[in-house]
């Protein structure tokens, strides 16, 4: 294949497919064993400083915020983050000094709520480096290549743009059509955390609603921890095996964390907490505000259940449940009406 153009960015998270096969043989267990543990232990055991890290979900939806707060509490450092539409998750980690390098599809923003003061301040001030650019589909297909055990996946995105020039993709002449095609290198993150609706103690997991890219990301991950709304009996999983999105042998740890995606949206269970988001967006305008937020919601508590009490407990969660069911009016203090 004739090489037409190559992106100039550092290639992150890539391994030779044979090296990855060997790594899987040596490190992934096919044993059905009980993997339940506390999130504190799971993060402490499976996340290393300097890791390339990716988070499941998408934007403010089904993100394992419990993991984000735990990583922050453990003061992990020098992480590189896969910002595959990373918003509140990466914002907290950047603000807390855990992440200093990013591969960006979408970051430093809060979707409709506006740009992210903390993330932008860090990049514009040089505290965080953007190592590589990519598109959303591009990231997705990097994980898909990894999930298939391939070195790359050919696609028709990013062609002709600076997004490609600042990525690690390459453009070659497709030997079948003769047209230029973009090859996206596989991406195997060192550490991935995904929040799911339910799984059994072995890690067989179901997700309600869109799966985004988590089916692929789970296979691409070298170390994978699940946080789950609920640990269910194995028989519940085996009754409807077509619903399993992530099978047990991909999973290193299972942590039961009810409401573990708050303040993000957990499809079918609770909507995003826009009052809490507004508080973060206001506080994160200054470094003092960031510290105030982290002290209040992360460092003053031992675990996520204490955090849920702080943000309003069952009363708040009941409102978010009704909001999710479109039975309560939206309260979004960041809306500038009029």
């Amino acid at each position, binding site marked *: 294949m004739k090489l037409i153009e190559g992106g100039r960015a550092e290639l992150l998270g890539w391994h030779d497919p044979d090296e990855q096969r060997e790594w899987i043989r040596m490190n992934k267990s096919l044993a059905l064993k009980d993997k339940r543990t506390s999130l504190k232990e799971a993060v402490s055991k499976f996340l290393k400083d300097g890791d390339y890290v990716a988070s499941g979900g998408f934007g403010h939806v089904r993100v394992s915020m419990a993991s984000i707060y735990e990583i922050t509490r453990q003061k992990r450092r020098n992480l590189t983050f896969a910002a595959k539409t990373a918003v509140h998750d990466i914002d907290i980690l950047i603000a807390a000094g855990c992440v200093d390098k990013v591969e960006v599809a979408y970051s430093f923003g809060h979707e*409709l709520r506006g740009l992210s003061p903390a993330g932008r301040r860090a990049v514009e001030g040089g505290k965080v480096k953007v190592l590589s650019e990519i598109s*959303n589909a591009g990231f997705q297909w990097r994980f898909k290549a990894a999930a298939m055990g391939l070195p790359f996946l050919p696609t028709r995105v990013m062609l*002709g743009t600076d997004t490609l020039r600042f990525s690690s993709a390459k453009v070659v002449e497709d030997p079948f059509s003769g047209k230029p095609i973009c090859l996206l290198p596989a991406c195997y993150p060192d550490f991935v955390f995904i929040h799911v609706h339910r799984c059994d103690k072995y890690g067989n997991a179901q997700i309600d609603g869109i799966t985004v890219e988590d089916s692929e990301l789970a296979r691409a991950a070298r170390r994978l921890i699940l946080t789950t709304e609920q640990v269910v009996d194995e028989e519940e999983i085996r009754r409807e095996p077509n619903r399993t999105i992530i099978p047990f042998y991909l999973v290193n740890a299972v942590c039961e964390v009810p409401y573990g995606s708050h303040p993000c949206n957990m499809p079918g269970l609770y909507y995003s907490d826009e009052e809490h988001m507004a508080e973060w967006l206001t506080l994160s305008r200054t470094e003092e505000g960031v510290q105030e937020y982290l002290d209040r919601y992360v460092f003053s508590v031992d675990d996520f259940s204490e955090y849920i009490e702080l943000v309003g407990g069952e009363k708040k969660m009941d409102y978010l449940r009704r909001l999710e069911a479109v039975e309560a009016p939206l309260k979004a203090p960041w809306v500038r009406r009029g």
Partner: protein
Amino acid sequence: MDYNATELMACVASRILKGGESVLVGTGLPILATMLAQRLHSPNLLVFFEAGGIGPRIPMIPISVGDSRTVHKAVMAASMDYVMSCAQLGFIDFGFLGAAQIDPYGNLNTTVIGPHSNPKTRLPGSGGANDVGSLCRRTIILMHHERRRFVEKLDFLTTPGYLTGPGARERAGLPLRTGPYRVITQLGVMGFDSCSKRMKLISIHPGATVDDVVENTGFEIILPDEISETEPPTEVELRLLREEIDPVGIVIG
């Protein structure tokens, strides 16, 4: 009847969707336009959301591009791979884009203002924009018309328009018969000249003038002999937007 620029842009965009069979949307203005089109003239317009929602009956504006509203009574809750593959297969007629900067060929910047290594302003990046701009048949760009945003040369080319002009998309390997179709701003509606692929003015909004457009465009825009005036929003359009589609004022303010 009074209306603001956001409401006008939503109405104009929704009219353009007439006749299209499918649209890939994010949230914000595009979703207003799409919901309005479904209620007024295109009830069967098939909506795709990049994170996996296909064919929802959207009860209210999603705040996040993948939130529960994007799969409410949908025909399928799929994945990003699934939706983006459908776009790559050619199933999607329209795609919406926004940008901080646009050039005469409809190329867009949503990544950075200033040098990439030392940004003056860091923007969110491509997100799904590059994918939408690469794979949808026709893209509709919604943005604010200002000289600093309509520039001869972008600081960073995030999403492909017609790149350097006629034939450039095809030479780069992008799918045939794709590219930017309309640019809607607070001043008017622009299209692209079929020969040169450069931006041309199609219509100006009520209250705006051709001079306003020229003054707020940092490159030479093609001014055809006939430039029409945009039809203002109708009472029905405004009522639907304000009372049913965005009652909280998340997008329309």
